[in-house]
């Protein structure tokens, strides 16, 4: 069989779309869609990025020992030097996600095979999205009760909330001068979540875009 060992939670939904496909970290990935560069709302599937979760009372200390810059306050995030981010999801839980080219999460997962006391690895199999475009705010307003306009991006906030009935983690961030919303949810809600967002984005004049159309910061190796 030639089935890839990694498939996105919305692989089937993406397959019907016209576009250029590639492979990121062993996962078939929609890289580019024609005529989508300036859409008012674009949604990209970033599930192919590798990620790792860890929780427990000693998780922060363990991450520091691994050289990870740990956000000091709950519900904030920091960039990873080689690309990617580390988000503090509460007092004792963290999400680490690589950029397009970095490899931090798999290394952490490997080192956590036999974790020290009070460090618990968390398998992350999220649907990971990026929302870009001028009308993203309108899309968020139709789907989420959080006032993102009042969120101060410079404070590196991590918003844990609910969107169209699904628990989500959202990071509003600036990428190459553009406001981009990074979003993660349980992959088993992926098809519902993706189809619903795309339906709305289409009404707003946008739709699905490829990974390459997300304005990653080139300076930090396409990390967040």
């Amino acid at each position: 069989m030639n089935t890839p060992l990694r498939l996105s939670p919305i692989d089937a939904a993406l397959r019907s779309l016209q576009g250029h496909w590639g492979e990121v970290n062993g996962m078939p990935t929609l890289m580019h869609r024609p005529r989508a560069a300036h859409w008012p709302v674009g949604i990209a599937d970033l599930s192919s990025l590798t990620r790792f979760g860890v929780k427990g009372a000693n998780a922060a200390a363990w991450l520091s020992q691994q050289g990870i810059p740990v956000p000091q306050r709950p519900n904030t995030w920091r960039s990873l030097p080689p690309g990617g981010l580390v988000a503090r999801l509460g007092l004792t839980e963290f999400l680490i996600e690589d950029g397009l080219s970095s490899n931090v999460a798999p290394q952490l997962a490997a080192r956590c095979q036999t974790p020290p006391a009070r460090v618990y690895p968390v398998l992350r199999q999220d649907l990971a999205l990026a929302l870009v475009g001028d009308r993203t705010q309108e899309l968020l307003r139709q789907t989420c009760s959080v006032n993102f306009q009042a969120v101060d991006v410079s404070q590196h906030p991590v918003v844990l909330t609910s969107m169209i009935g699904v628990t989500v983690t959202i990071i509003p961030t600036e990428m190459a001068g553009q406001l981009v919303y990074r979003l993660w949810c349980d992959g088993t809600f992926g098809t519902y979540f993706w189809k619903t967002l795309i339906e709305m984005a289409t009404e707003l004049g946008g739709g699905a875009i490829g990974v390459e159309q997300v304005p990653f910061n080139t300076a930090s190796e396409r990390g967040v």
Partner: protein
Amino acid sequence: MSHRLPPLPGEWIDRSQRIEFTFEGDRLWGYAGDIITSALWASGRRTLGRSFKYHRPRGILSLANHDVNVLVQHGQQLNLRADVTPIAAGMVLSAVNTNGGVRSDRNSVLDFFSPFLPVGFYYKAFHNRRWFPFWERLIRNISGLGAVDVSTPHLRTAKRYDFCQVLVIGAGVAGLAAAIAAAEAGAEVVLVDENPRVGGSGCYQLGADDRQAEQVQALVQAVQGCDRIRVYTSTVAAGYYADHWVPLVEPDRMTKLRAKAVIMANGAYEQPAVFRNNDLPGVMLASAAQRLIYRYAVKPMQRAVVFTANRDGYRAALDLAKHGVEVRAIVELRSHLTASELTQAVTAQGMPIYLGHCLYEAQASPAQDGVAAAVVCPVAANGEPQPQFRQTIACDGIVMSVGWAPAANLLYQAGAKLRFDESLQQFVPDWLPPGIFACGRVNGVYNFQQKLQDGKRAGLAAAAFLGYAVTPTAAHSVWLGDRTESPSHPWPIIEHPAGKNFVDFDEDLQYKDFPNAIQEGFDNIELLKRFTTVGMGPSQGKHANMNALRILAKITGKTPGEVGTTTARPFFHPVPMSHLAGRGFSPERHTPLHERHAALNAKFMLAGMWRRPEYYQRPGKRREECILAEANAVRHGVGLIDVGTLGKLELHGPDAAEFLERVYTGRFRNLKVGMSRYALMLDESGVVIDDGVVARFSPEQFYFTTTTGGATAIYRELSRLNTLWQLDCGLVNLTGAQAAVNLAGPDSRAVLAKLTDLDLSGAAFPYLGVRAANVAGIPARLMRVGFVGEWGYEIHVPAESAPALWDALMAAGADWNITPFGVEAQRLLRLEKGHVIVGQDTDGLTTPREANLTWAIKMEKPFFVGQRSLQAIAQRPLKQILVGFMLDPNYTGYPPQECHLVIDGNDIAGRVTSVAYSPTLSRYIGLAYVKPELAALGTTFSIRLSDRSLVTARVSPTPFYDPDNQRQQETVLTTLQEVSI
């Protein structure tokens, strides 16, 4: 188009765009910007609709979104309010609630039967059981608004959230001033108004004074030029919810707006006077006539009589006269009149004022479709009319201006305390909750200049509340207002022996209905409302409740304040169902294998939020045949089922075993690494709430499953307990991150062996063993389980790799004709094995004893959740117990269903929880709760089927299939594999 006025400054119509439409078969036209009512009135139509009960002709009353007797249908769109719906080219309109058209409605005969339709008619009619069907048929035939087209498409109406610092509800004079003041102080403001344009009454209650309109226009321009103010027009703030959450209903969407402060500038509803025939087309509120003039440039009538009790009536008279209406008389209900610029202007124009008079009766035109004359008479000191002195004044229209009722619905919903102000004859805010402010008419302020001041005060107060620096005087939250003249008369109600003096136009309630209801004992406002149905029509009492309240107060000798108001619930204005439904978000979960199932023609079913394969459709086969084929494949070959919907949790830490000991009924401290055990969970009351399998992968690492439906709640509860107990362990929810399949059947080992290096022999990997290994190159956790009664493996892998695992297993199993099986086959297979499904074979009261699960309880443990309750209930006799049963193998009738009752004699003795035809045993088998005296093996009982016939069942031992678990023995497996080869 003889009733259209010359162009007016500020009119809402665009005379360059002529729009044609059809009303009741007549081709008509209006201008862009016209609403249906204004276009009809301009064309000379006067009877625009029929009343709800008596089918009396009705025209304009308020022209303010409350004329519910003029509802029209346009194609699939029902009950459009003609007084706010714009005309559109090609509209084909008809009045609802008519039988034969609005002009010659055959149901108007009901008007003659009105004496036989007393107040509380519905209650009285339906009270008699014998006559109930008659009345039901009759009323069903007569009633109903419009014709529903069931093919109407589902409208996907967006809902959205919005946010602001200050929400100003109502863009009249006070609202505009409030918005500007708050914005100038620094606040971000949202200003909403139900009308398509802002300005409110400031744009039409002019009293022929154009300076006021100019002032309002200046306010409008200030709002439009302010970056901090966003304006929502054609938007109804339809309710108030906690923390300043207000649903804004727009034509094509609903916005749920969260504000930090709310200014209620909702205004007031003008109230009708109650006199005989006050419902004739041509009798309208003064504000309606003024809207008709200034918004749509339509002349309301040619000759008017103005019935008034406040200054607004004089303003209306002046506006009418300015636009060519001959004002034949001003009938002033008050006995004393304070001279003012308005009264002087009226007198100067020669309009006769009938001081201390009432409008006793409107006389209908010969065709009964309009006003022919107004009958006026003096009012005695006690408020009674003196008809012996009546005079008749010919006219074709009557304008009413006798009082107002505050649009205080949202204030009430926000928790404001209102009191009845005698001098104003109005309920006004007495105390406002933090962050709520009121101004303008709803605050008892009617004078134009004072409304400006009051609005500014409220705007500044809201800004101060948010921390913006404003002058100290802004701290007052309630304005005292002008008390020199009341805008509302305390008794604008004129009794008439012939009746038809309507209080509630929605429900055709006359004055006499109220004394009658009160006499029958319905003498408080809530009871009166429900018995008479006052205020229960589509306008929700906006023009009826105040007069009803005054009537009740007068008859019971109370003040209106003592009578009080009815409860104002959201939404206070009708909201389309499409807006409430929105897009209809229904979160649904798919396992990573969903597309594989779909490709195999799976028929999906909902299991909680999950969509699971019920069975796989085979060409030309019935559902039951497909399920039996799948079950047979598992029994005799190999099957594959997606069990990724199970809750999957991981527990780490030195206290992990202790934690499991406490939350489950069994023992887990002694569970060996590499083994698994059935786990049963109870709640504090000893009721079975979940079960699963606990696997130990290391001394401090457990991996366990929960039921599909229980996963979320169980994880939440276990997290709570972990926090509470402060044990040294950590819980991780892997339900979505891990996929799982069950490879089951005698050939399962052979299939799996092709994909892994793991030693799968019974000795190396025994029944209930667990292992970590690679399967098809994918890191996996394997558990030897026997839920379906065959040799099998649950294989858990990361979700992203599940399709690869599935494809590899299907390919590896091709030589053994591997068969995917669904939930129904699994249910059948586990039933043969006698396994209980929590939630199906248990309910919210089932204890382990009743479900025959005491073998999974270790009462000798120091503690587990539910243990104390089990000790308590152990002393009580059992009321029911779960038993297995079989039907006669020759039974060929209709099979019993789950939830069918067990009958003993003539009594209910239990119920069936599971039942299926077993292909292995060639008969129906099942599980049922029965009385303990019926539980002995071999006992027979009856099951009542849906057709009420009885079928006999016999209590049988479980498991029905492989009671000695031989299928998990390697020797048996080897034999079976040899047979299969």
